[in-house]
C-alpha cells in the first residue's frame, strides 16, 4: 500500500517538474524579438500626444524637477513625470535595459542616455530613430551629434557634454619663470623639472589610471593626442599602429620615470583631485567639476586661487580630449512619441541649456553658449573647455560597449602596470591583443 502511494507521489512530482520545464521552454519562444528591423523608422508615428515619463539618473541638483514643472505648466494635457534611477551609471543602464525587456509594460518614454550607450540601445531596438527633418541640429557640437547617431541614423539629441581640462599650479609655474602652460608632454615634463627644483617631492602629472571607465577616457586621449586615431574615419580600431603606440609608449615611459606616480594606478577622479588640492602634483587632467571644488576657500583645498586651466597637452601640440556627456533618446515603446519629441526639442533648446548650465554646471551642447559673456563670467573655464570639447573624440561606438571598454582597460592597465612596476604586459603586446579583440567586437 505504502509503495503504491510513494510511486504515485514520485510520479506527480516528476510530472510537475517536467511541466515547469516545458513552461520555461515555451516562454523562450516568446522572447521579445528585437527586430521590427529597420522598418521602425518608417512606421513611427510622431503625432501621438499625451503624458510621458522622463527617465534619468538621480537628480542630484534638484533642478531637473523645476524644469519639468515649467513644461507641465505650459502643457497640462501632456504632463511629464520624472523617474529618477540610481546615481550609479551602470545601474541606470541596467534599469533601462530591464525596462525595455518588459513586454508591453515599458513605461519609459524619454531616456537620458550616456554617450557610450547610444549604440547598444539603438542596436537593441530600445531607441526610436528620430526624424532628422524635424530636428534642427545646426549649432550643436558635431562630436556630440555624431555620438547620437548609429548606422547613419539619428537616435538621440545631445543634451550635455563634457571634456577634459589640464589644471595646473599657476603659482609654481610663475615662480619658476614659466609664463605659458605646456601644450606638449615634453614641455610639461620640462616645466615639472623646473618646479621640482624649488619644490622637491612634488609629483608632476595626475590622471585617472585606476582600472575603470575613466582609464578608457584617459588612454583614448593619450592615443588621440599623439596623432593616432583610436578609431579611424571608417570606424575601425587603430590602437596598435605607430602613431597610437607613440602615445601609449609616452604614457608608459612617464610611469617608468616617475613623472606619473606609481599610486596613480589606483586613482579615479576623486583621488587625483584630492592629490591636486593637497598640493601633491603640479598638473592634473580632470573634468570641469574640479574647478569649483579646488577653488573652495574653507581649508579643504590648498590650491584655491593658485591654479589655472588649459587644454590638455599632446605629443606635438594641444591634445585631444575624450567626449563625455548625455543624450536624450525616445523609447521605441513609447506610446506618446509626439509629446516626447516636442519635449526633447524644448529641453535642449539654447535657452534651457543655458539655465541648466547655470544650475547644474553641466556643459551644454549648443556651441554659441560657450561664448556667452554672462556664462563665461560665471564659469571662467568655459572658453578653455570649448577648445577641449570642440576637438573631442568619442569613445568607440560599439554595441557591446561593456566588452569593448573592458578590453581597452585590460590593455591599458597591463601596459601602465608594466611601466610603473615592471609587471603587467609589454605595451606593444598588450595593444596588439587589443587591436585583435576590438576588431572582432566592432566587426
Amino acid at each position, binding site marked *: 500500500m505504502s509503495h503504491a502511494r510513494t510511486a504515485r*507521489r514520485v510520479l506527480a512530482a516528476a510530472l510537475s517538474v517536467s511541466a515547469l520545464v516545458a513552461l520555461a521552454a515555451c*516562454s523562450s519562444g516568446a522572447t521579445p524579438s528585437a527586430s521590427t528591423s529597420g522598418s521602425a523608422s518608417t512606421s513611427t508615428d510622431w503625432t501621438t500626444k499625451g503624458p510621458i515619463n522622463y527617465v534619468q539618473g538621480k537628480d*542630484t541638483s*534638484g533642478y531637473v524637477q523645476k524644469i519639468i514643472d515649467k513644461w507641465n505648466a505650459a502643457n497640462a494635457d501632456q504632463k511629464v513625470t520624472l523617474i*529618477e534611477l*540610481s546615481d550609479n551609471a551602470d545601474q541606470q543602464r541596467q534599469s533601462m535595459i530591464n525596462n525595455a525587456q518588459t513586454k508591453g509594460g515599458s513605461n519609459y518614454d524619454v531616456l537620458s542616455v550616456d554617450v557610450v550607450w547610444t549604440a547598444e540601445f539603438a542596436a537593441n531596438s530600445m531607441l526610436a530613430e528620430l526624424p532628422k527633418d524635424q530636428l534642427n541640429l545646426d549649432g550643436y557640437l558635431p562630436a556630440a551629434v555624431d555620438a547620437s547617431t548609429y548606422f547613419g541614423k539619428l537616435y538621440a539629441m545631445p543634451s550635455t557634454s563634457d571634456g577634459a581640462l589640464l589644471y595646473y599650479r599657476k603659482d609654481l609655474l610663475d615662480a619658476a619663470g614659466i609664463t605659458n602652460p605646456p601644450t606638449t608632454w615634453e614641455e610639461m615634463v620640462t616645466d615639472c623639472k623646473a618646479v621640482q627644483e624649488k619644490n622637491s617631492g612634488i609629483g608632476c602629472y595626475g590622471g585617472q589610471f585606476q582600472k575603470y571607465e575613466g582609464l578608457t577616457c584617459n588612454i583614448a586621449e593619450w592615443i588621440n593626442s599623439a596623432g593616432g586615431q583610436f578609431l579611424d574615419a571608417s570606424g575601425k580600431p587603430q590602437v596598435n599602429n605607430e602613431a597610437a603606440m607613440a602615445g601609449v609608449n609616452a604614457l608608459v615611459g612617464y610611469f617608468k620615470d616617475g613623472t606619473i606616480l606609481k599610486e596613480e594606478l589606483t586613482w579615479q577622479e*576623486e*583621488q587625483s583631485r584630492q592629490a591636486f588640492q593637497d598640493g601633491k602634483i603640479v598638473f592634473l587632467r580632470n573634468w570641469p567639476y574640479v574647478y569649483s571644488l579646488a577653488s573652495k576657500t*574653507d*581649508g579643504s583645498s590648498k590650491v584655491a586661487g593658485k591654479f589655472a586651466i588649459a587644454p590638455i597637452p599632446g605629443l606635438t601640440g594641444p591634445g585631444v580630449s575624450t567626449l563625455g556627456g548625455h543624450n536624450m533618446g525616445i523609447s521605441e515603446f513609447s506610446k506618446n512619441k509626439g509629446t516626447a519629441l516636442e519635449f526633447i526639442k524644448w529641453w535642449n533648446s539654447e535657452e534651457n541649456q543655458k539655465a541648466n548650465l547655470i544650475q547644474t554646471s553641466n556643459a551644454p551642447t549648443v556651441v554659441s553658449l560657450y561664448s556667452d559673456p554672462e556664462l563665461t563670467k560665471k564659469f571662467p573655464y568655459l572658453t578653455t573647455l570649448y577648445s577641449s570639447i570642440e576637438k573631442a573624440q568619442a569613445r568607440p561606438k560599439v554595441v557591446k560597449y561593456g566588452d569593448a571598454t573592458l578590453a581597452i582597460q585590460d590593455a591599458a592597465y597591463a601596459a601602465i602596470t608594466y611601466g610603473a612596476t615592471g609587471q603587467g604586459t609589454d605595451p606593444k603586446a598588450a595593444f596588439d591583443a587589443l587591436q585583435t579583440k576590438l576588431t572582432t567586437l566592432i566587426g
Partner: protein
Amino acid sequence: MTSATATAPKKQARVSAAELAVLNKPTRDWKWWLGKIGTVAGMGFIVVYCILPFYWMVISAFRLPTMGQSTDFWPNPASLENFQAVFSPVNNFGRSLLNSAIVSISTTVLTLLFGIIAAYALARLRFWAKGLVLSIIIGCSMFPGITLLVPLLKMFSGYYDWFPNWMNTYQALIVPSLSFGLPLCVWNLTAFFRQLPVELEQAAMVDGCTPGQAFRIIILPLAAPGVFTTAILTFIAVWNEFLIAYTFNQDKDMKTATVAMAQFTGSLGFNTPYGSIMAAGVLLTIPLLIMVLFFQRRIVAGLTAGGVK
C-alpha cells in the same frame, strides 16, 4: 583570586593560616605570569583588532565633508555635517532606511510565521519523506545567490508572460530573502522544539486541548527564546543584504540603505563623499550593534545551536 593575593601577606603572622594560603595558592612561577600577561595582551589585541577599523569609520564620519580622505587619527575639526548630508533630500537616505526596515521586518515576520509551523511539523509530526524535506530546506541555504539571481532577474523584470513585473517592489526583495531566512529558522527551531519534551503536549491534550491549542499555549511560549533568537538573526541577515537589493531595486525611492550607502555621489556626479558614506555606514550599523550587544548571549546561543549541543 586577586583578593587572595592582596590579603596573603597580612596573614603571615598566623603561621598555620599562611601555610594554608601557600597550599591553596596556585603556583605562580614565571610560567603563570607569562600566561597571565599573554592572556591580557591577547585580549587587548582582540579588542583593538575588532574595534580599530570600526573606529576609523566612525571618526571619518565626524570629519568635515571636504576632508573625507584625511588620515589624521582624530577629526580636526569635528563636525556633524556628514550626518546632515546623509539626510539631505538629495541622498534620500531616510527613505532608504525605511525601505530597509520594511523589507527586514516583513521578511522576519514571514520567516517566523512559515518557519515555526514548518519546524513544528518537522519536529513533532511523522510523515513521508521527512528527511528529504529537511535536506531540501537546509540545502537551500547552500545555494550560491548568483545561481538564483540571474533567472530571478529575468523572471522579475517581466521577461516572461507568466510572471508579473516585480522590479522595484518590496516583494522582489522579501520573497528571495525568505529563501535564506527560512533554512536558518527551520533548522534552529526544529532543534529547539525537539528539546522540549513531548509529554508537555500530551499532558495538555489529556486536559482537553487540541494539538493546535497545545502547541500555542504550551510549546510556543517555551520556545519563545529560540524564536526570538531566530528573529534577530534573520533580521540582521536581511538588513545586511546587498546583492539582491542591488539587482532588483534600483529606483531612487526603492533602494535599501545598504545599496544607497554604497552609491552616494556628490552633487557633481564625480565626487565620492567618503564622509557621508561613512556616516551612512555608521547609521546603518548602529541599530545592529545595539541589538547585538543587548542580545549577545541569545545570538551566540542561536549561532551555536546546530554545531554545539
